[in-house]
Structures are given as structure tokens and as C-alpha cells.
């Protein structure tokens, strides 16, 4: 079970991605838990996640989130804008898996 946390300003636009990523995971036969939160909830939610992905419009939060991410020992990165615009669940899911894998 891989737990993927997405964060943006209000958790609205990243929640669009959640469904697409879940579909992509189903196709791959991977068991995942994916959820989207608003930026101020992210540090708390990170504790039960395996990876944090940040919406590109909130990429200026990366430095701040990186501190908490290090404390709880999970990787994080900013979602690539092209995949974000296309709501490309598969690409973002692969990125999450790559980050967890490393």
C-alpha cells in the first residue's frame, strides 16, 4: 500500500488529480491511497503519507514543506506543470512511485 499526499492552495485542483491517479493505479494493479489537502493541512497529513506532491502553482511552498518532510522521512516534489494541466494521472502516479522507490 502506497500512500500519496497531494497539496495545493485549497486542495481543490489537486483533488481533480486524485481520481485520475486512482484509475491509473487500478490499471497497474497497484494498491494506493491518494488524497488531496489544503496547504495548511499538509504538514500534519505528511505524517501518514509515503510521499508528498505539491501543485505547481504552490511550488514556493516546497522549501517550507521540505523541513517537515525531512522530519517524517518522506520524499517530496513539485508536480510537473504539463502533467498537471492535462490531469495526467498516470504520469503523476509514476512520479510518486519513482520518489517512493528512491
Amino acid at each position, binding site marked *: 500500500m502506497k500512500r500519496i499526499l497531494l497539496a495545493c*492552495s485549497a486542495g481543490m485542483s489537486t483533488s*481533480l488529480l486524485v481520481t485520475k491517479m486512482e484509475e491509473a493505479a487500478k490499471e497497474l494493479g497497484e494498491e494506493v491511497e491518494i488524497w488531496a489537502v489544503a496547504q495548511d493541512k499538509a504538514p500534519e497529513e505528511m505524517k501518514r503519507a509515503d510521499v508528498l506532491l505539491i501543485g505547481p*502553482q504552490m511550488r*514556493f*511552498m516546497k522549501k517550507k514543506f521540505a523541513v517537515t518532510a525531512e522530519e517524517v522521512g518522506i520524499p517530496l516534489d513539485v508536480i510537473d506543470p504539463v502533467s*498537471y*494541466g*492535462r*490531469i495526467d494521472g498516470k504520469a503523476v502516479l509514476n512520479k510518486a512511485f519513482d520518489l517512493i522507490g528512491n
Partner: protein
Amino acid sequence: MNTFMDKLENILVPIAERLNNNRYLTALRNGFMVALPLIIFGSIFVVLANLPFLDRVIGEEAYQAYRNALGPASAATLSIMGLFAIIGIGYKMVEQRGGEAIYGAVVALASFLVLTPQVVDNTSGVVPTSALSAEGMFLGIFTAFIASELYQLFVNKNLTIKMPAGVPGAVSRSFSALIPITLTLTIFLVIRIIVSFTPFETVQNLIYTIIQEPLTVLGSGLPATLIAVLLIQVFWFFGLHGQIIVNSVFDPIWYALNDQNLAASQLGEELPNIVTKQFFNTYVVGLGGSGMTFAVVIALFLVVRSKQLRELGKLGGPAGAFNVNEPIIFGLPIIMNPLVLIPWLVAPVVVTIVTYFATAVGFVPRLTGVIVPWTTPALISGYLATGNNIMGAVMQLINIGIVFVIWFPFIRLLDKQYLQSELNND
């Protein structure tokens, strides 16, 4: 071009980072979030209390009774939102510092009440509700900042009463807050006493006169509004969440303006402000998200021929109706795309100017101050925000038309490019 873009990116990202991560602005934003459910609850009942034609259906007398019955809902929430913001800010300030947040909330609230007049028209033992809303907003924010910082400072200085090991945790915690809270509130009491000897008489009056009034007058004007609109667009062009960044600075002003309108509309007086928080929710964000992209979605359905753009319309359309438009911003793409920079910057500015003057001349009513959530679809939000007036929806419809006309040639150009590259690939 790329190095220029990189340079701008290197300037804008740190600004966004600063504004968004500043401790005070973060506490302010999150503190307002605490108040938001209450504000929306109150707004729902203001809308219900002002349903159109109801007085004609059930009669004037029954209508008054109905309004009086619903009145407390907004009086207890929307009208005293400053109070909840203070609690929220005090809580979040101390939480950030890793202290016991609930004491941050109470110390902020108590400090504010220490500064608040407790006499109205020679009746003592009462607090004017106006002090807890628009008029007290700025004082409340400053007080929450200072009180929670002082509290945490005294806690960190170890100015607490240490209890022996056998004392239960809850008991010793209640004592640990004692000295920091006593010192903090004493300081505010002294401030109150000092100001009472000045011509301002109350701290409320002092802050209102020298800070809040000048700032809100400035913030309600067209120039400041256009600067805010443009900044939002520029940040978004670089793929940064402009609304969030600009809100950090403008929200206290916009909410104060909003509250003035609300207070006036409940007294049946003329509404003082054109630009309010709701002005942005309704006419700037409310037309499909930042950058008013609902018209762009319509264009993607009506005029484009390239596969990629049509696909984007289907992908971004449903969310766009609820003013979530990241798929459009990143998918078109709007970010870093010089081709759409002109309509992206020009359309919101034109719409804001048109709406401002249309409101000023009375074509469309001023906004009553109810808070309609920003995810409410266009036309519905305009209707609700103007006090259930169809002209609010008409204004939004006109605005969508303006955005469409400005964008149209650029969408055609973009479509041609996509079509060309799709043909080349086939």
C-alpha cells in the same frame, strides 16, 4: 526570452515564498479560515431572510416576523466575524510556535476585549457589536498578533509557575499559563489607560482613525484594485497561485470593506463600498477562476478545431464551472505562454474597470456583504452577492462576454498552431 523568464521567476518565487510563509500572514490567512464556515452560515441566512417577492406572497407583517426569526443567525456570526478571526489568529500564532494554541486564542480575545469600549450611550456592561466587526477588524488583527507573541515570549522566558512532579498535567498546565497571560493582559490594560488620556480616547478609535480608515479608503479605490488584479495575473502567468499571494496582503482590507456594506445593508442604509471581498469573489474569481477563464472554456467548446484544445475543454470545463481552473491555466497553457499574455492581463483589467463603473453609476447594485463561497458558479454567485438581484447575474454575463471577445482572436491563433502541429504529426 528564456533567460528573461528565468530571471523573473527568480524574483517572483522568493516574493511568493516570503508572503506565503510569513508567520503573521500565515496566521492571518489560517485565522480567517477558522471564521469562514461561520461567515458562510451567516451569509446563507442573510440570503434566506431577503428572498425576493416573499413579502408579497406572505404579507408584510409575516415577512417581518420571518426576518426577525432568522436575524440572530447572521448577527451571531457574520456581523461579529472579527471576533472569530481574532480567536483563529491567536490560536494559529501560538500553534506555529509549538505552544498551547488554545491559550493563544483566549489571550488574543481577552486582550482585544480589554481594549474594547464597555459602555454604549452611558449604559455600562455592554460591548458594541460594531467593535467586533468591521470597525474592530484591524485592531483585532494587531491585538491578536501582539498578544500571542507576548504570551509566547513570556512562556519561553520560563515565567511560569512550576508544579511539583505529583501534580496532574491538566492542573499544572492551567498554572503554567497564569503568569504569561497575566503579564500580557496587564500590558494591554496599561495601553488602554494611556490612550484614554489622548484625544482618541479609545484604542479602537486610534487604530481606526490612523490605520484602518486610510488603508480601506485606499483599498476600495480603483487604482489599488487594479494593482491587485494585475498582480494576481502576473503571478499566475508564472504559474504561481496569485490569488493566495495577493490575498495575504489585501484580505483584511477587503473583509473590512465587506463588513461595512453588510452593516449598512442590515440597517437598510446606502451601501458605502464598491470594492469588497465579495467583489473579488463575484467578479474576479467568480467568472471561472483566476483570470476569468470561464469564457475561455466556452471558446474551447465553440470555436476550436484542434484535438488537443477540444480535449482540454472537456477536461477543464466541469471544474471551470466551479471556478477551479488549474487545468486551463496549466493545460492551455497560460503559464509562460507569450501568445496569451495580452488577453490574460487585459481582460481582467477591462472587466474590473467596467464592473467598477457599472456599479458606481448604479447599473448593477453594490454587493450586500454576504459571503458567497468562491466555488459558486457564475450567474448564481452574482445573483446572491447583490442581495438576490438579477442584475448581478446580468453583470457577470456581460463580463463573460467581454472576456470572450478579448480572448477570441488569441484562441483562434492558438488553435491554428495546435492544428498545424497535429497535422504535421499525422
